[in-house]
């Protein structure tokens, strides 16, 4: 006896699928399956013509389930959900089956195998669809205001961007002044202005926009509410006893980075004249005319690259990543030094030069101006010693240069600059308050670096700039503007829909053991007393607005009372059955 009325559409995708999979056979065989009311193929399921054919079928055959076997769900899930919705079918009763990326294209060498696999995948899709139930997204009104945490160049540019689109901004900066690292630099490539002028210009721009409120020496200490209407609490240092409470629709985290601080003795750090790149920039900023350090004229500088970057995995807490900004920043700094003294002797001790893109031009220019580049092997790094004799030069640098058959070279230098990398900034309280996803190396994780580059799984909480990973200022600003656009596109609509595919507890199965309470990192699970007696029986519930649908709580439950809608244990078992069942050809 048929209980469901499912329509199945198998796509040719021109020939992308049908060249390698016998789609007609797949449709024929699935058409014989119980509950399948209509099974068809289409040249392009995503075409307007097929979309309206599906809509007609849904209405005519009174379908209560839809399966589309075509490309990856990354591409057309929203297209077909909309088809369902237009025809009056709940969009969550549709299942996408990937028979292109995960079938025809992966098995172009085996038509028989690919066809058999496609049949099993579609069977699994039908099996899942049988168990789907209508889901309704929660609708939430949004507040047209964004909280930006961090007033570095990323946060400042995002604030201006948002204000100009008509979204109010509250910017919270923990230091006395906004500006971040850029405000501390002596010089910056790819900007005609000096860094301080650049930041002063942004401060001015913010000052002239009444839609932006800035709190300095301030921190976000609590977050309540849900997406679209978060209630955040801000503590301002001058007035700590009276925290401020503000409602915002979304949050952009732009808390930036820190610079790696070498250990004493690491590449001679601690010896007078051995500086990190930011320390050297400070010397440069304070020098007028010829370059001096502690009153001594500087004539030779050696730069050691990749300090605190690209470390070997075996070191505990290693910073294995490339910090991106530093090669170019150093090459540019050296060009600035030539402006102080065109005769300066500058040696660059590097592992690989990563002045990517147009920054290659800076690298060429620095070589033309006289910078010398020596390549060392990571297993044989340069060593830095205080020079024996207190003559003119101060430090002795020994390096094995791979470009001259690993010859040992000795450089006498007045200054050694350690080109230190970017590391994640410590922000334990904020991570806890906002439930920020901390990823590889301690930076925060977006959902996907290319496909969803500023969103986190916490709806309405976005990331931008160097809190995500090392970036140059221009890359940080691009991320800041992306987060601003994303934020505005959500808040301008006035309301948001929350994904209904979240976890639920089946109260009939739940034995009130309470195991799940601590399993959710988003604190979405709560227990409430069933009676007035606080010690009496309790019920366990999941807040649909805070649950992210990760399912982390699911395996914790001893009695299988929790399931993520759309991914319930029953649905997954049905798919497993579908994937294993031999296809029986219709007679």
């Amino acid at each position: 006896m048929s209980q469901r009325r499912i329509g199945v559409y198998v796509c040719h995708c021109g020939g992308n699928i049908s060249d390698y999979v016998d789609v007609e056979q797949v449709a024929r065989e699935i058409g014989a399956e119980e509950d399948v009311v209509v099974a068809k193929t289409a040249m392009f399921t995503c075409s307007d013509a097929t979309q309206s054919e599906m809509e007609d079928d849904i209405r005519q055959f009174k379908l209560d389930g839809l399966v589309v076997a075509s490309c990856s769900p990354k591409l057309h899930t929203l297209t077909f959900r909309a088809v369902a919705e237009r025809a009056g079918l709940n969009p969550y009763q549709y299942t996408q089956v990937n028979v292109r990326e995960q079938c025809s294209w992966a098995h172009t060498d085996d038509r028989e195998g690919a066809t058999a696999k496609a049949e099993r995948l579609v069977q699994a899709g039908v099996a899942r669809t049988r168990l789907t139930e209508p889901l309704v997204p929660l609708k939430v009104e949004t507040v047209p205001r964004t909280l930006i945490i961090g007033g570095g160049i990323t946060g400042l540019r995002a604030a201006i961007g948002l204000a100009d689109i008509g979204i109010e901004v509250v910017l919270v900066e923990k230091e006395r002044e906004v500006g971040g690292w850029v405000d501390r630099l002596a010089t910056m490539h790819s900007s005609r202005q000096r860094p301080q002028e650049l930041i002063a210009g942004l401060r001015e721009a913010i000052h002239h926009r009444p839609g932006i409120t800035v709190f300095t020496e301030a921190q976000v200490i609590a977050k309540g509410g849900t997406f679209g209407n978060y209630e955040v609490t801000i503590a301002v240092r001058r007035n700590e006893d009276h925290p401020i409470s503000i409602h915002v629709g979304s949050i952009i985290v732009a808390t930036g980075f820190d610079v790696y601080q070498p250990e004493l003795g690491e590449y001679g750090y601690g010896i007078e004249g051995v500086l990190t790149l930011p320390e050297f920039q400070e010397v440069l900023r304070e020098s007028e005319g010829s370059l001096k350090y502690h009153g001594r004229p500087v004539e030779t500088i050696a730069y050691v690259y990749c300090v605190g970057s690209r470390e070997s995995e075996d070191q505990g807490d290693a910073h294995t990543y490339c910090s991106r900004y530093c090669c170019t920043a150093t090459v540019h700094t050296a060009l600035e030094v030539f402006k102080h003294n065109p005769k300066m002797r500058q040696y660059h001790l590097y592992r690989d030069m990563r002045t990517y893109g147009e920054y290659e031009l800076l690298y060429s220019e620095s070589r033309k101006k006289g910078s010398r580049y020596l390549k060392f092997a990571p297993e044989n790094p340069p060593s830095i010693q205080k020079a024996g004799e207190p003559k003119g030069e101060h430090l002795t640098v020994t390096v094995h240069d791979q470009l001259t058959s690993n010859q040992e070279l000795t450089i006498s230098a007045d200054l050694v600059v350690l080109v230190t990398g970017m590391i994640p900034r410590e922000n334990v309280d904020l991570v806890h308050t906002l439930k920020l996803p901390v990823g590889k190396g301690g930076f925060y994780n977006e959902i996907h670096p290319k496909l969803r580059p500023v969103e986190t799984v916490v709806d309405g909480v976005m990331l931008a700039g160097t809190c995500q990973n090392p970036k140059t200022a221009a890359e940080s600003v691009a991320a800041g503007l992306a987060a601003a656009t994303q934020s505005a596109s959500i808040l301008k609509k006035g309301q948001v829909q929350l994904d209904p595919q979240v976890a639920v507890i089946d109260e009939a199965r739940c034995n009130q053991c309470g195991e799940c309470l601590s399993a959710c990192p988003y604190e979405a699970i709560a227990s409430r007393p069933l009676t007035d007696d606080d010690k009496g029986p309790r019920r366990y519930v999941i807040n649909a607005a805070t649950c992210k649908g990760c399912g982390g709580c699911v395996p914790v439950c001893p009695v299988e009372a929790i399931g993520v809608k759309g991914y319930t244990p029953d649905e997954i078992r049905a798919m497993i059955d579908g994937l294993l069942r031999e296809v029986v050809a219709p007679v």
Partner: protein
Amino acid sequence: MTASETIKDTALPRILVFSTNNISDPGVDLAGSAHLHYSPNVVTISVPCSSGIRPSLIEYALQEGFDGVFVAADGEECAYLSDCSERTARNLATVQQWMEAHHWEPQRLRMGAICSVCAESFVSYVQGFSHTLAQLGPRGGQDHGV
């Protein structure tokens, strides 16, 4: 297609991959987009996060007929949980205990980090796994824990 090829295909070990929507699925998709070939008896079920896979589901897959299960974990890239790998590993340890108790070869369960650009490593993982399972021979000896 000759008869002998059909036999070859059906003899290929059946592998179920649990993959994640945001991180490993794009990697598996990319393998297809690059037309990298692997056994058509490798099939995927996508879930939001690998830490949400109930051990009983993996056990079910083995009992019902899969020769091996591969969990493509997000590792440190997981956007939901910073302890995703630990949680997933803990769940798999439960499955391993169950496998031992029911005389399943431990090689039939694997976990590996597959990221969104890991097309080649995905293919080499599943092909290697296919090979291992083929050498183990058909499921059968074990008491299936039913």
